[in-house]
């Protein structure tokens, strides 16, 4: 059958077709849909791990047991898993193990745009770079074969543009398959899987040889493909960048690399001597270009004409080609941007009835006494108008450690950490242990919306539902925190403005180690959330004071009606957007907001 699949759907399909039996992942844009799709296939086990290192460790155990396996994460997640990853290269694998890293050039929904191909060179294992969904599907099988043949972990690197684009894939309809138990565990004579110093020293030269062997295989591997054309220009490209090259450099010779590490240097050298000028087009770092220059291969153009930062586009590749003096087909002309009218920006906002709203409304009222360390999730939007209640944010789970350090270094304000439920289980437990142990007076607000929300509502240890929809064990955050020795633990209804205010104030005044408040309310996209009748504004009562705008709800709008005493616009509520959470009603000083008739 012929179907349009996203890169992520194709990676899942390729993994299933290639016999992957176990997969583990932590959700993160743009990688999330890979495991969501893989989980739907028969005869496999797929799980959400509590973080990316756990996901990789799960996969390592599966591989050592003999199963084909994948671990899936976004680019910054690989940083979390890197401790195991770097030594996994030394231990090698038994069942094929592929680490899927979904990078985010352009940082559409990430804190940086690191180029994870660098991990392949750093860790000394191969990196495959698919250019469309069909590649993604096929390369998964190749990656697993390479992994098993050379006993190496293999990185399969996607990018946002590949993961979230759909292109045609041809495949046969997946058939039923039974889950296969592993053969009896055979204790091996040699203990390369136990990476103590003596073994590590012995393994290091072996992995250098292994890399060499993969490079030799790459010289004739089908994934590195020559497309001969006009030989005045030869373009070397990889990943999604190849698609831009194919259009802009149409008619010229192209060497499409399916693997950016290790490189088939002889093949590239031969290509370079056949063409008059060698141009390298790659997204982000000059990863291939640097390797070619180090090998003494003459590169006419690379990062001198193509941007180092940001996602590549047809327009950027066109501009680079023109700069290199390559004759390219011109554009038909331009349409002027609409400059005569000011176009207001449309930043994302917390949804109507979002359970984070009352907390950030209160945080904004308290922020003159506080330093607020944030974390990764929808609640990162606490930094935006009208709250402006986040002072630092750097990585998953970092809020608690940053608040701790700020306080211990002598910070005079209250230090508040805001962290989501999934992020808390990801990497909030160990910094909380450090704060309890060192008796640090910080406030930790666990914004528990009962789901991993920002990535599209994935289950987590706090919800107790597994990726494959089974009932697992739900972990109670307040109980865990109490067991860790926190002396201030309070749960509060996320939509009760006064209760959140009271708890927040008390937590900030707590002087016996960390104070933890668990702000509980289900994300509006979960089945737990029950929408209510929309609210409306009584124009006879509204005094146009604007307090309701401070809750930052997309459903609260300026009305055409004017409050006569001040000449200001009154408020109205969009009945299509409002789901009746009452946060605005609670803050209205004159009781002008009431339940609509429905």
């Amino acid at each position, binding site marked *: 059958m012929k179907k349009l699949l996203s890169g992520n759907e194709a990676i899942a399909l390729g993994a299933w077709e290639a016999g992957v039996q176990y997969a583990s992942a932590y959700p993160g844009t743009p990688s999330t849909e890979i495991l969501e799709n893989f989980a739907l296939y028969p005869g496999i086990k797929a799980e959400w791990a509590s973080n990316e290192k756990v996901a990789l460790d799960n996969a390592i155990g599966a591989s050592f047991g003999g199963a084909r396996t994948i671990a899936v994460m976004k680019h910054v997640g690989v940083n979390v898993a890197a401790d195991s990853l770097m030594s996994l290269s030394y231990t090698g694998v038994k069942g094929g193990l592929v680490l899927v890293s979904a990078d985010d050039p352009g940082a559409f929904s990430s804190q940086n745009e690191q180029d994870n191909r660098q991990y392949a060179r750093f860790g000394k294992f191969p990196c495959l770079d698919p250019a469309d969904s069909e590649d993604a599907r096929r390369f998964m099988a190749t990656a697993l074969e390479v992994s098993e043949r050379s006993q190496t972990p293999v990185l399969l690197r996607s990018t946002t543009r590949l993961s979230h684009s759909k292109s045609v894939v041809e495949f046969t309809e997946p058939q039923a398959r039974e889950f296969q138990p592993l053969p009896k565990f055979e204790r091996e004579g040699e203990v390369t899987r136990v990476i103590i110093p003596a073994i590590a020293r012995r393994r290091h030269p072996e992995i250098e040889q292994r890399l060499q062997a993969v490079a030799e295989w790459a010289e004739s591997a089908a994934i590195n493909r020559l497309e001969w054309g006009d030989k005045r220009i030869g373009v070397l490209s990889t990943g999604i960048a190849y698609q831009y090259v194919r259009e802009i450099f149409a008619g010229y010779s192209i060497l499409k690399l399916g693997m950016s590490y290790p490189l088939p240097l002889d093949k590239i050298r031969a290509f370079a001597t056949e063409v008059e000028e060698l141009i390298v087009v790659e997204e982000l770092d000059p990863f291939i270009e640097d390797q070619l220059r180090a090998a003494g291969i003459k590169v006419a153009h690379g990062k001198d004409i193509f941007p180092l930062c940001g996602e590549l586009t047809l327009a950027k590749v066109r501009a680079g080609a023109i700069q290199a003096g390559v004759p390219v087909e011109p554009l038909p002309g331009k*349409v002027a941007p609409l400059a005569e009218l000011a*176009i*207001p920006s449309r930043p994302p906002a917390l*949804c109507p009835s979002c359970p984070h709203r009352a907390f950030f409304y209160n945080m904004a009222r308290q922020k003159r006494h506080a330093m607020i360390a944030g974390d990764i999730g929808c609640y990162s939007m606490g930094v935006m108008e009208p709250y402006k209640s986040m002072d630092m944010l750097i990585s998953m789970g970092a809020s608690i450690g940053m608040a701790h350090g700020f306080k211990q270094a002598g910070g005079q304000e209250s230090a508040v950490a805001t962290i989501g439920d999934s992020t808390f289980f990801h990497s909030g437990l160990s910094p909380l242990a450090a704060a309890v142990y060192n008796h640090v007076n910080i406030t930790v607000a666990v914004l528990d919306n009962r789901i991993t929300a920002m990535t599209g509502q994935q289950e987590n240890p706090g919800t107790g539902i597994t990726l494959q929809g089974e009932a697992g064990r739900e972990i109670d955050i307040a109980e865990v925190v109490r067991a860790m020795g926190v002396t201030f633990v309070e749960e509060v209804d996320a939509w009760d403005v006064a209760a959140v205010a009271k708890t927040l104030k008390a937590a900030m005044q707590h002087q016996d180690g960390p104070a933890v408040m668990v702000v509980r309310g289900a994300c509006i996209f979960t089945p737990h959330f029950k929408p209510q009748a929309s609210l409306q504004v009584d124009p006879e009562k509204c005094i146009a004071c604007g307090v309701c705008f401070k809750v930052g709800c*997309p459903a609260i709008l300026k009305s055409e009606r004017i409050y006569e005493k001040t000449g200001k616009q009154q408020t109205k509520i969009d009945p299509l957007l409002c789901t009746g959470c009452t946060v605005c009603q609670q803050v209205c000083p004159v009781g002008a907001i009431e339940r609509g008739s429905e």
Partner: protein
Amino acid sequence: MIKHKNFLFVGVGGQGVLTASDIAAQVGLDLGLDAKKSEVHGFSQRGGVVESHIRWAPRVGSPTCEKGTVDVLLAFELLEAARWIDWLKPGGDIIVNRQQITPMSVNLGQANYPDAEALLAALEKRAGRVIPVEALPLAEKAGNVRTINTVLLATLSALLETDPQLWENAILRRVPKRYAEVNKVAFKLGQAAAKK
């Protein structure tokens, strides 16, 4: 016979832009062409701007269009048509839902939503055909506000002079069965909107 078409669908998170673009890509395949589509989600789900590119050609390379090469800009919201106008190719067409969704910056009084007629006039100056559609009232008339995307796809099918049945079938394959009838009605209303 259509050989090459670039489409850019834009709107606000939650409007059904991504479903509509899936359907448009599928119609490209059903016409016997290659098709790709590309979008960015993540943060943009939360009431932010959503953009989705769809390309039809005998063989498509890049999944995204290039600024200045879009044949049809389909805007699910009036302001978004204005924001993305410079992606259009000279003489390209615009289908624009007249619905207005005010951004938070406007709610907070930091910016104004431009006058609707002035926006449409500015679009007229830059495009080949501009087809404004009252997609929200039409979807309501069809029986479900979520059929906005069906209304707009029907308008697109009429603008392109392609077989409407291909589009209707692609839509019906995609939506839950219990919504088939409202989508059929919405499709008829959207087709008629193109002819005004």
